[in-house]
């Protein structure tokens, strides 16, 4: 029988310190950046450059090497050893390059974007804290440690969303983000409880090994192993196996902004735009998907179905919401939620490689979109002065920027085309992979499982629609701001930013081309897609989902040509619709400028994101606050009063028993009373009269009880 102790062997090597440096450098940046004053951005960026270099080096040297891991003990809990485990695998190597690279670009971008901020060095420190925490999630192959850093990225996200805390909306958004994440994390902790109870470890390697050994017998989930020479036999209801997966998934629902916790992400746009690019588009929000990838093999069929449905519903709902927003960052935020929905859906249907592939391509093009939008916002904001004030994020003030900001236009366009899923751009490849697998999954599953497919394909149209709507409204037609500010005159026209702004955006725009991922029109042709291999499910057979690998090839054959065609066709439909509605001079484009909010029930549902926010802020939250006030009233008026009343009663009773004691208690009691007398002497000298009464009372009680005991 396998001993847990043998799985959890401790090992380390000098190489480990190199890997740990990936975390140590940003942490060092967090601690030291404050010392550099005005040079803080340079110092932090320099450290991040080092770290990115290190990540790239590790990727290049280890990508095809054997898996390595480093393990040590964190602490001992009773007889159980709680370990730390770092795994150097492809996923970790690729993710650390992406996180560090985008973080570096954001560091550079922020030098210009944030240069007038009075808390500039604090901002860079927070970026360091974020990068450190994010690297923790990436490095640790251990659910507990992953959770630790999971919450720490939540903290950095909280701090950065609320960075401009003087704005009430910013601090409210920060709270909302943290609390929504906490709701998910309560689920994550529940998952940890279940797995720990069953396997006595949080180490993913141990969990996976023991999961493979566990069995389902008579509906019970059984595992039998040794821990430190001691036999362990755990058996709990088999439903906890599904529950564990779903509970852990709750964590991803919070972090990756999935239905029904996704409402924090649009509000999170209150943070500085570079932060939105880094945390709320490219890396942190993808951590949920990354976590799903880490626990992928221990998810059972039921849990995966839940994952798939939640993903599809989220993708669809958010795409609808993105259709009618005015705020450019809101469009991008909803789009992020929608794309994350795709990734989660991919995980749910077992398309592990496709989901991660989309995570990677999305990280680049969405960060690019945010940075480009950031340039626009920054440059428009520069036009504001005491006479002219407007919302630089509102697309109603934009228009025609293609002529004024050509470089920004191209950066934005490339990323946007990747988002819309046009061939030749990275998003097309990864989305194609997801849709292909989804179709095969649907055909294989049958029954009601066509719903995710319908939602996912509808989302393709909507995605193309809102993407092109955004492009038309921002870059085509006439620059609308001058006509909106009436009397005041603009001091200048907007123009492209300087190199610190442009280089990161253009770089990300270039990375949105599909050629980096392979000269191909199919995901199958991409080297990256092949690099990330879909692992095999380890849950007991009767609970396991059908792996996509096991789905007969015939389900896929026809799809290889149909799906890309359909996907391109749908994207084209979206484009045509957007063109008809929002091309310069079109009916909707004109109406849009003067509208305060969309009209009609559908427009309203879209604009208010299915009224989900209202449900929370107008019904659930007031209900909780009301309940808390009721409980506070109950506490003060009922419980406290009741106990006070009891105390008064006790005083009365005390007098009665004192009287009883004086006249009825016999000699035997007096004998015992000498004992209490001794004690009394010790304390008497210090006591005031009032206190003494109570001490006397307590001894009267004692005597009564003594009598009770003896007779």
């Amino acid at each position, binding site marked *: 029988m396998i001993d847990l102790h043998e799985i959890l062997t401790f090992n380390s090597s000098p190489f480990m310190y190199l890997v740990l440096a990936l975390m140590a450098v940003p942490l060092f940046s967090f601690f030291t950046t404050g010392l550099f004053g005005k040079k803080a951005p340079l110092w932090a960026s320099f450290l991040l450059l080092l770290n990115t270099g290190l990540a790239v080096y590790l990727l290049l040297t280890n990508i095809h090497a054997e898996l390595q891991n480093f393990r040590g003990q964190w602490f001992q809990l009773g007889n159980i050893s709680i370990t730390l485990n770092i795994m150097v695998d492809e996923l970790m190597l690729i993710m650390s390059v992406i996180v560090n690279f985008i973080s570096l670009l954001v560091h550079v971008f922020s030098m210009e974007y944030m240069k007038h901020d009075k808390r500039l060095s604090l901002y860079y420190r927070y970026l360091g804290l974020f990068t450190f925490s994010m690297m923790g999630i990436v490095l640790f192959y251990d659910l507990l440690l992953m959770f630790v850093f999971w919450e720490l990225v939540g903290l950095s996200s909280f701090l950065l969303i609320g960075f401009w805390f003087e704005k009430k909306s910013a601090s409210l958004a920060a709270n909302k983000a943290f609390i929504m994440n906490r709701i998910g994390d*309560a689920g994550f902790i529940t998952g940890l409880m279940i797995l720990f109870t069953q396997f006595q470890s949080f180490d993913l390697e141990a969990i996976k090994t023991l999961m493979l050994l566990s069995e389902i017998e008579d509906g019970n989930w059984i595992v039998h192993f040794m821990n430190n020479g001691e036999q362990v036999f755990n058996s709990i209801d088999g439903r906890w196996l599904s529950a564990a997966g779903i509970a852990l998934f709750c964590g991803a629902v919070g972090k990756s902004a999935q239905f029904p916790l996704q409402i924090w992400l649009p509000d999170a746009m209150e943070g500085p735009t570079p932060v939105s690019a880094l945390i709320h588009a490219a890396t942190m929000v993808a951590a949920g998907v990354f976590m799903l990838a880490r626990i992928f093999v221990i998810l059972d069929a039921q849990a995966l179905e839940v994952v798939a449905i939640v993903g599809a519903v989220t993708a669809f709902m958010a795409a609808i919401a993105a259709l009618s927003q005015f705020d450019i960052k809101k469009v991008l935020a909803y789009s992020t939620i929608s794309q994350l929905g795709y990734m989660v859906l991919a995980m749910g249907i077992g398309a592990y490689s496709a989901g991660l592939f989309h995570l990677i391509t999305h990280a680049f093009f969405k960060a690019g979109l945010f940075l480009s939008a950031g340039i626009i916002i920054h440059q428009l904001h520069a036009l504001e002065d005491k006479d002219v004030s407007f919302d630089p994020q509102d697309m109603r003030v934009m228009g025609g920027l293609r002529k004024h900001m050509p470089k920004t236009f191209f950066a934005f366009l490339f990323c946007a085309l990747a988002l819309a899923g046009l061939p030749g751009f990275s998003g097309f490849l990864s989305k194609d992979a997801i849709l292909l697998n989804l179709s095969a999954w649907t055909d294989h599953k049958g029954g009601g499982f066509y719903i995710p497919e319908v939602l996912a394909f509808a989302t393709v149209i909507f995605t193309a629609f809102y993407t092109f709507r955004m492009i038309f409204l921002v870059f085509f037609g006439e620059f609308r701001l001058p006509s909106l500010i009436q009397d005041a005159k603009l001091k200048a026209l907007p123009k492209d930013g300087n190199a610190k702004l442009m280089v990161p955006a253009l770089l990300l725009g270039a990375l949105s081309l599909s050629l980096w991922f392979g000269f191909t029109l199919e995901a199958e042709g991409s080297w990256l897609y092949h690099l990330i291999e879909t692992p095999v499910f380890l849950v007991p057979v009767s609970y396991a989902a059908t792996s996509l690998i096991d789905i007969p090839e015939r389900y896929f054959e026809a799809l290889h040509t149909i799906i890309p065609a359909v996907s391109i066709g749908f994207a084209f439909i979206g484009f045509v619709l957007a063109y008809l509605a929002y091309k310069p001079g079109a009916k909707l484009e004109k109406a849009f400028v003067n509208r305060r909010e969309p009209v009609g029930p559908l427009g309203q549902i879209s604009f208010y994101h299915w009224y989900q926010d209202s449900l929370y802020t107008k019904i659930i939250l007031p209900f909780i606050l009301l309940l808390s006030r009721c409980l506070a009233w109950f506490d003060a008026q009922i419980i406290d009063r009741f106990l006070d009343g009891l105390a008064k009663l006790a005083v009365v009773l005390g007098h009665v028993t004192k009287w009883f004691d004086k006249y009825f208690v016999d000699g035997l009691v007096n004998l015992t009373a000498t004992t209490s007398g001794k004690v009394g002497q010790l304390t008497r000298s210090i006591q005031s009269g009032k206190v003494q009464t109570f001490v006397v009372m307590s001894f009267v009680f004692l005597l009564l009880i003594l009598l009770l005991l003896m007779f």
Partner: protein
Amino acid sequence: MAHLLSFIVFIPLVGGLLVLLTPKTYEYLYKVVTLSSLGLTLLLSIYLVAGFDTGLQEAINTEQQLQFAEKADWFSFSLGSLGEISVDYFLGVDGINVTMLVLAALVLFIGAISSWNIKKHQKGYFGLYLLLSTSVLGCFVALDFFLFYLFFEFMLLPMYFLIGIWGGPRKEYAAIKFFLYTLVGSVFILIVMIGLYNSVYDPLKTAEAANLSVSGMNTEQIIEAVQQQVESGAIAKEDLVKSFNMLHMANDANYIPGSFLDKAGLSTVFGQPARWIAFLALLIGFAIKLPSFPFHTWLPDAHVEAPTPISVVLAGILLKIGGYGIIRTAYAMFPDGAYHYAWLIGFVGIFSIIYGAMNALAQKDLKKLIAYSSVSHMGFVLLGLSAMTVEGISGAMYQMFSHGLISAMLFLLVGVLYDRTHDRMIENYGGLASQLPKFTVFVTIAFFASLGLPGFSGFVAELTVFIGAFKSEATNGAIPFWMPIVGTLGLILGAGYYLWTLQRMFMGKFWVKDKHWLSTLKDLELREYIMLVPLVALTLLFGIYPALLFDLINASVISFVDHISPLAK
């Protein structure tokens, strides 16, 4: 060092006497004496921990598992046919109280620094504070129930006056309320103590009294021989030397056959086995101190009225005596009762977690909010204990330690604000972050530590409680699976009330209700840093490196769980 524990416990008392003897003209010496005696206590307790053997694994109810033990006959006399009363001066530490001792020494020291601003009746204040220190420290290390009870009761007096004289506007009400509640609790404890005393004998002293021939036998053999003879009735009742020794009380074999609380459990009270009722009485007695729902209402009042250092001590250590008492007496002595009432305890635990958090959400007074958050956090202690698993008990102990640090920090921070404005209403402040950036940093750290952010000690504690509680149904069946799952609601609500407070008081544009505060609202000063920085560092240290604490308690907790849950195996 011989008598190390006695030194730790009584140095503050000596300091207190010095304070009393120092004439008022040398008033500045009071603080010096207080600080140096508590500093010495802290140093000695750290020295003690450094010498604590973490590998010692002995049964929890034997004296072999004790370290730094001191035992001497204190007094004894005959009660005729009732046998003989024998009270020992018996101190010792094991994994269960060693952490509490250090925590107490630390928090008392920090409380002393925090007392710097006390102007009124300094002699009385510092004298009482040092008296309180001795009784608190004594309470954690006394292993004779009589001695323990004495320390336990003694705590009330200084506390009563410290709140009643140096407190806020409704200090008299709060002081008497605190006093009454705790006193009711002690009556429950006293009842059981008497019952226990009537049922438990000391095997070694009995051997002496009964003139057993013990030549050539070692202690363990003597104990075994006596226990056998008592079992068979060979030793006369008159010869039984009854015992207040808490370790003897935790051993079934030391219960006199046929006595009120003997292991057979034949006696009944209100139709329930007497042992269960005794357990319940101890539980209630200490739960009042903890405090747990529904006995918690004294806490917010006491905190609101108490001066800052007393709040710090109250939340930091006094509450822990409740938790410690439950472990040391109720659970150790009546594990059968603990198992029988596990469901109830677990339920009260999660109820306290959620109820405390919901109440905190509704509070308008910052100090009351933190008081209710204490109720919520102490619920974790009950939840962990009710599980009767190694993880659960360890988690409960970790939570007590961690909450001691974090609540001390929180109350100090409230004190910082109160010192400056004499107002604690949340609604009267806004955007403090711009005016008091450093203070805000510490508040943010304390809030996040308290809401259980990983990296801080509270997280380790809560996680351990949760996994321990969940493990229960799968291993010993003490509490059901759903309890810890429902308990996770506490995590969400905790984030809710802390972040909402942070947002209302510290975020947004700077605004205060009273213009006069503008001049008094200064950022942290050196003395405040000296108190806060070590606490922050320690919460971080115990959050990042939990082995520091777990290594101290692991061996004892394992023995403890072996002792209390034969069913768990």
